[in-house]
């Protein structure tokens, strides 16, 4: 297992390096400068500014300087937030996005698994019908529409929650609900399909034949085996959620990271673009790694390359 982990971490670092390099060169192809009042600067002034920020140097040299800085843990300073270190910028914006994302993930996938399992067990009954109806609804309604509806009815009309603004746990509830519906619906669908399959397999029949009750069979044997496809989709879903949903964050005026990323691209804020890309890639890869390890725990048949590859 240790060997496997070390190997994966080496790949992770290599991938990060490639991502950073590709992003760096692609980013430099974007038109415009990182200066916020670019249109007001004359060609001469632009030249002076470029010298000041080292943007007049050949691209390869700029790349080298950036990579060397990166190896020293220096992500540079932002252009849109003058002189603000990029790392600090990411960290201060990350917490709200992570919190809402994690809450939505736990709530959504948790309820989704339950709903899917119940629907599968009660296949072709009204319970299944209702569950399927809600999962289709959940997938069809965009989260921002739901966000606006939740805000209007629960917060504005009924005053049960804060309308918006980031102020403690209560202000995270509505965004969490809005974001949780899609993962809920997705997990439920996958869970149901897989569970229906599993429930008709031989070992379940055997378990039943041994005299286990229906619920015992489900809990002990079916649930675990039905989780495999669910775990697969949970990985990317988690990254999506935790890196922030721009629109939902805007609706609830949450100082999250999603908007920062879009804004850094729109304003050519080179160091922030790089910092966030590297950070997102890192997060995605870590989650993929965790998912791979989870597979092994859930299903002993796929106890990763430890035996297979070596």
């Amino acid at each position, binding site marked *: 297992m240790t060997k496997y982990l070390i190997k994966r971490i080496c790949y992770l670092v290599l991938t990060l390096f490639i991502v950073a390099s590709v992003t760096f060169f692609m980013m430099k192809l*974007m*038109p*415009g400068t990182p*200066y*916020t*009042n*670019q249109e*007001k*600067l*004359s*060609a*001469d*002034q632009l030249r*002076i*500014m470029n010298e*000041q*920020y080292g943007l007049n140097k050949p691209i390869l040299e700029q790349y080298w300087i950036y990579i060397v800085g990166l190896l020293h843990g220096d992500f540079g*300073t932002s252009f*849109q*937030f*003058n*002189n*603000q270190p990029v790392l600090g*910028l990411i960290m*201060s914006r990350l917490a709200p996005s992570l919190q809402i994302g994690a809450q939505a993930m*736990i*709530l959504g996938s*948790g*309820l989704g698994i*339950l709903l899917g399992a119940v629907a599968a067990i009660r296949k072709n009954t009204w319970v299944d019908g209702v569950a399927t109806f809600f999962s289709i609804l959940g997938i069809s309604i965009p989260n921002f529409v739901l966000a*606006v509806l939740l*805000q*209007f009815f*629960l*917060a*504005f009309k009924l*005053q*049960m*929650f*804060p*309308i*918006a*603004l*980031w102020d403690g*746990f*209560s202000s995270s*509830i509505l965004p969490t609900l809005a974001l949780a519906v899609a993962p809920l619906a997705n997990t439920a669908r996958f869970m149901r399909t897989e569970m229906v399959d599993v429930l008709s397999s031989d070992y379940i029949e055997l378990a039943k034949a041994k005299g286990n009750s229906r619920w015992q069979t489900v*809990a*002990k044997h079916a649930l*675990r085996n039905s989780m495999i496809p669910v775990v697969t989709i949970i990985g990317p879903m988690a990254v999506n959620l935790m890196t922030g949903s721009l629109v939902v964050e*805007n*609706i*609830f*005026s*949450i*100082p999250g990271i999603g*908007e*920062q990323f879009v804004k850094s691209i*729109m*304003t050519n804020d080179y160091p922030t673009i790089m910092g966030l890309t590297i950070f997102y890639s890192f997060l995605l890869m870590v989650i993929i790694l965790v998912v791979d390890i989870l597979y092994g725990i859930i299903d002993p048949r796929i106890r990763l390359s430890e035996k297979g590859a070596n």
Partner: protein
Amino acid sequence: MRREKSLVLGVTTLAITVLLAACGSSGSKEASTDTVTFTTSDVISTMDSALNTNVIGAQALTDTMEGLYRYEGKTVKPAIATKVVKPTNNGLTYTIPLRKDAKWSNGKALTASDFVYAWQRVVNPKVGSQYAYIYEGIKNATDITAGKKAVDTLGIEAKDAHTLVITLDKSIPYFSQLMTSSTFFPVYKAAVEKAGKAYGTNSKTLVFNGPYKLSNWNGPDSSWTEVKNTNYWNAKDVKVKNLKYQVVKDASTALNLFQSNKVDRTAISGDTAKQMKNDPDYSTLPKSATFYMQLNQDKNPIFKNAKIRQAISMTINRKELVSQVLGDGSKPIASVTPKDMSFDPTTKKDFTSELSTEGTKNATYNPKEATKLWKEGLAELGQTGKTFDYTMVGDDTDTSKKQSEYLQNTLEKYLPGLKVTLANVPFKTRLTRSDSGDFDMVVSAWSADFPDPITFLDLFVTGGDNNNGHWSNTEYDAQIKASKTTNANNPTARWQNLLKAQDIMNTESGVIPLYQSGVAYLTNANVKGLDYGPSGSYNNVSLYLKK
């Protein structure tokens, strides 16, 4: 199996917590009567007056810092200076007395050397200010920024602790207006030196000299509070204890917050603004910014014909554009220079009200005349019956897209043979395409750096960096030149130059004005004394709450 159980348990716990929290938060907090809460469209980028380039930062700086002068209503009033000074030495020297009771928020005295230090910092190429160009005209500023001269050669000197002497290379007719701008504010030297590059990135690095102090603010925070500065020389006139700013980007969220009394004043846009038009709390505010269309004369010689340009201008129903498409408080405009920004030095009348109707009529909707001029123009050029396939470049925001569609529709409707293709691109791409001439028509915008018509008119001289359409008129160039040279020290004659220049551009439809951008607001009826100055910031000294 234990894992699944704990998962179910966790979800249940979360659900219960959600319900409990919901009940707990139902008693809404009432805003303190000493606080006025505003929504704002974005975060503060920096509180370093040398580096700030946007209105949000400029507002926070105007609240918490103070320069030589401050706008009260439409008038420039002395602030840290004791009077608004007239220049001597043929407009090249300003000797400005400073008030002796001015202090920094740490209690230390504010002296002339604080200005000297701040100004030298802005032009210092090492600081990398994107606004250093606004110092152009102050002795040696341009050379210092270019790295050709030492920073201490800048034309500013502390004659004594309370007298500032400013020397210019050429006279700056709008010098007093310029002094209200945050780029000319003083800074506390010890604070800047202590913080180094971090100066202005959080409130701990700052020392203030204005009506308010920023407290507990950190870089990209999405809300911030300004508390009254008791060390401000005019603290007795500051009535509101706290100003609170909340970043809210979604118009319907802003509306919900306003209607629940969570915020006292908020900007609204789009459909929300249209929907609230008849509300008693609704008002609009014109900004010193205009949108206009430029026609690429190099690429398409037909745009060199004045009748063609006039025709394009006359097809546009600006009233309909602002009310149906924008609906946000923007106003039709007949010149690139906006209304409510600059005033005749003798008659005190608005610049735009003194323009000739011969020019402004070209920006009045007249489709019949437009079609006629278009046909005449094409006949003059020998292009009758030809078709023209043009690309109109614009921004890619929702509003800009709608606006482009509107313009496309109206141009194609009244100008036979014209086919407009839309290219709505990100802002930086629009700038790049404008600079490189990669467009046929482009919708551009400009906002005033300081409240004087020259900030708009200077753009369109022959060879101007932002004259993307390359419209050129020798008489226009001559008027602009005269305003800066022969008449620089004669406000009345200079004003006539500027009026004439604008008239020429209007008559020629050299650039096609569309509208002056505006913002629609909802304001709590208790909030009084809102004083939005020509410089684009509020003077919150006069703000008060009706009890």
